[in-house]
């Protein structure tokens, strides 16, 4: 990282692609700028007024030129658009078999939870060579999780889960910034992501957590909040069994079918009556809005994920 470099470090699989696209768009921009500057400069000098009596011949326009200089730039823009959209879709859609980590943003810090139960504040450790998916929640206002070296960013909006994925390539330490203004400590809401070789990462992980893994913590919460009372695992209770629910389709009482993803599970805990599974009654499950922290909700979700067959999405660790 020289003091006068134009690019941040490239530490993810997509960084090079993003930089290439940027170079293309900037190059086109530079060429266009130079062309315009040159025309203006040359015309200004070549056609400078030499006498007050000059009356240049009027040239009103040229349909051909107008079409040309509309269509050609637009065609180039379509290339930018197509390339940018395609890269965006790739960067927006996590692959299967990601390493899932959980991030909670609050004024003014980032809290990271690992499936193994490790927790960090303002620090993230990830291995090279694996796709990492972050599921992110906010406890208060809108934040935005940004790692310039990976060229990834996503707003973290309260009341929703946002996901972000990347695959690190180069060991090192890189900035994490909050990129959505969130109050007094917005500028200090940053941290570091440490990318390690897989071996080093395993070593770091085995440093371990004092508490159990997220799954174990989630299971504890599941008992503690009385979920097990109604959601018995292998028989029908007052509430549906949660075995093999995560990652599969769910039929609701109003006829809709939804996929049980992280957002669905969160909503089912926090505001259960918005979506009732077919065959069950409303107003039976307590409303847990405001009673369980975002971090605890994530632990519960990891536990519920673990109740699905390994073939389903998002195996921990």
């Amino acid at each position, binding site marked *: 990282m020289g003091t006068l470099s134009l690019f941040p470090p490239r530490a993810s699989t997509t960084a090079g692609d993003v930089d290439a696209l940027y170079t293309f768009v900037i190059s086109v921009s530079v060429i266009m700028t130079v062309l315009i500057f040159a025309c*203006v400069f040359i015309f200004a000098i070549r056609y400078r007024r030499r006498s007050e009596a000059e009356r*240049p011949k009027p040239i009103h326009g040229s349909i051909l030129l107008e079409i040309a200089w509309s269509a050609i730039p637009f065609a180039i823009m379509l290339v930018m658009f197509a390339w940018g959209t395609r890269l965006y879709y790739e960067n927006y859609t996590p692959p299967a078999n990601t390493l899932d980590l959980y991030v909670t943003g609050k004024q003014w810090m980032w809290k990271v939870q690992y499936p193994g139960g490790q927790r960090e504040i303002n620090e993230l450790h990830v291995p090279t060579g694996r796709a990492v998916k972050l599921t992110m929640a906010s406890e208060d206002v809108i934040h935005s999780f940004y790692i310039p070296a990976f060229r990834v960013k996503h707003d973290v909006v309260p009341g929703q889960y946002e996901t972000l994925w990347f695959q690190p390539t180069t060991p090192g330490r890189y900035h994490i*910034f909050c990129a959505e203004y969130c109050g007094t400590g917005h500028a200090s809401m940053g941290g570091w992501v440490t990318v390690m070789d897989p071996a080093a990462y395993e070593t770091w992980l085995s440093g371990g957590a004092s508490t159990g893994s997220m799954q174990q913590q989630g299971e504890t919460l599941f008992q503690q909040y009385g979920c097990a009372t109604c959601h018995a695992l292998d028989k029908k209770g007052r509430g549906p069994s949660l075995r093999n629910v995560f990652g599969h389709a769910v039929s609701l009482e109003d006829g809709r079918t939804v996929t049980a993803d992280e957002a669905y599970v969160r909503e089912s805990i926090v505001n259960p009556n918005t979506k009732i599974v077919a065959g069950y009654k409303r107003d039976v499950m307590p409303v847990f809005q405001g009673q369980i922290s975002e971090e605890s909700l994530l632990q519960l979700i990891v536990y519920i994920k673990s109740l699905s067959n390994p073939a389903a999405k998002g195996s921990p660790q």
Partner: protein
Amino acid sequence: MSTTFEPPRVEERPNYLNVDYGWKSWLFTTDHKRIALLYLFSITAFFVIGGSFAVGMRLNLLRPEGLFEADTYNKLFTMHGIIMVFFFLVPSIPAVLGNFLIPIMIGARDLAFPRINLLSWYIYVVGGIFAVLAAFEGGVDTGWTFYAPFSTTYSNTHVILTAMGVFVAGFSSILTGLNFIVTIHKMRAPGMTWGRLPLFVWSHYATAIIQVLGTPVIAITLVLLALERLLHAGIFDPNVGGDPILFQHLFWFYSHPAVYIMILPGMGVISELIPCFSRKVIFGYNFIAFSSVAIAVIGFLVWGHHLFVAGQSMYASTVFSLLSFLVAVPSAIKVFNWTATMYRGSISYETPMLYAFGFIGLFTIGGLTGLVLATMALDVHLTDTYFVIAHFHYVMVGGMVMAYLGGIHFWFPKISGRMYPEGWAKFAALVVFVGFNLTFFPQFLLGYLGMPRRYHAYAPEFQILNVMSSAGASILGVGYLLPMIYLAWAWRKGPKAPQNPWGAKGLEWEQSPTPPPTYNFETPPVVTEPAYNYAEEAHVG
């Protein structure tokens, strides 16, 4: 014995400035030209206020650890944005130059609704007082974008007072737009067809469409924001079922078209300057006219490009991205047409033309960097960084403000009856150009390197570029101070201006005296030639 010889008193011809004196004749005027000057005065005041907040910001950013407290800095950038957007840029050219010139350019004696015009100014001042009052009472720290739930639930500053200031000022904008639309439709002199209108008028027509259709939406958004802050009913609060992203959609539905309010009038000025100082008819009149309207229309369809990383569906984002590229095309058309106008022209380098050159260059850079941001995969990296800040300052300051200064200088003789000092003016234009680029070009680099915006303190590796930017800002500040000084001097002490110092075409130069009488014309004009008919010598009667 010598007698002191007194030169005969030359009776100054009655014009709108000397027809009446005293504060009442100004504060109760319905003359569009005097109202334009009232606006000039208040807009300049707000520019100074907003600019001093910027001085504070750039001072703070000299050091990575900052200078002021975080809260202070957060208030500075918020109020800088609010004042510059709502109280300077949005009114600037329309309220000053548009008000002064549109009736004269179309051959009318005044706007359609002169009393509403005055009301517009008072409404604007009241809104401004609310905003300045909020600043004195401790300021507001939500960012000019007022995002919920921070603004509705968490901020402890004067959000409602400031929002109401903006709300009130919005009505000033709406009424000005309404006045322009009716005036341009109904008050054109005989022979002034739509196809002969100066492009300055076309651009203000397009701007007025946006003002009229877009501003009410920010008005209701701010009302909902204020009510939510008072009642906490939950419309934007996710804890109770509300949606903070709804706020963003409502906000940007106006605020994106608003940026076209903040550039179209500038483009209109440039369309007047280039033909005059190339002494040649504008190239592609129809295309430029229709491009203005196209920008206004398409500009309403792109707001989602502010939400690419906010959780908007990727399909919606795709549509917004495509439309954002589309809206660049009419702007590009204009730049090409202006350049083509210079081809085989007869070009002179008076100050207004220097500002026009600056506009073309800097607007081109600003507009092209907009394409970078419209590219979704790049926007992910660049949004909420200094790249965005550099982009919009290039178009709004490198573009609009330079057009404003160019227009002020071009029409200064018409407005004041005097000439400004050309040497100082050229020097100031150069200082502005250099200072501007030194301030904002480093910010493109900072943005790609990853420096987020709205940071009172930053990572140390960003310091060099920040120091460069702050140095540039000090130069830019000098560049802006200079015209304030010499134009004020020239107003009183400048040499008398001839009727048409630039040999320009257009009713305001050829048929309205310099400075104009209250009703603009001595005899009602009848238009017989097309616009920019520079092949014929300009009438300097």
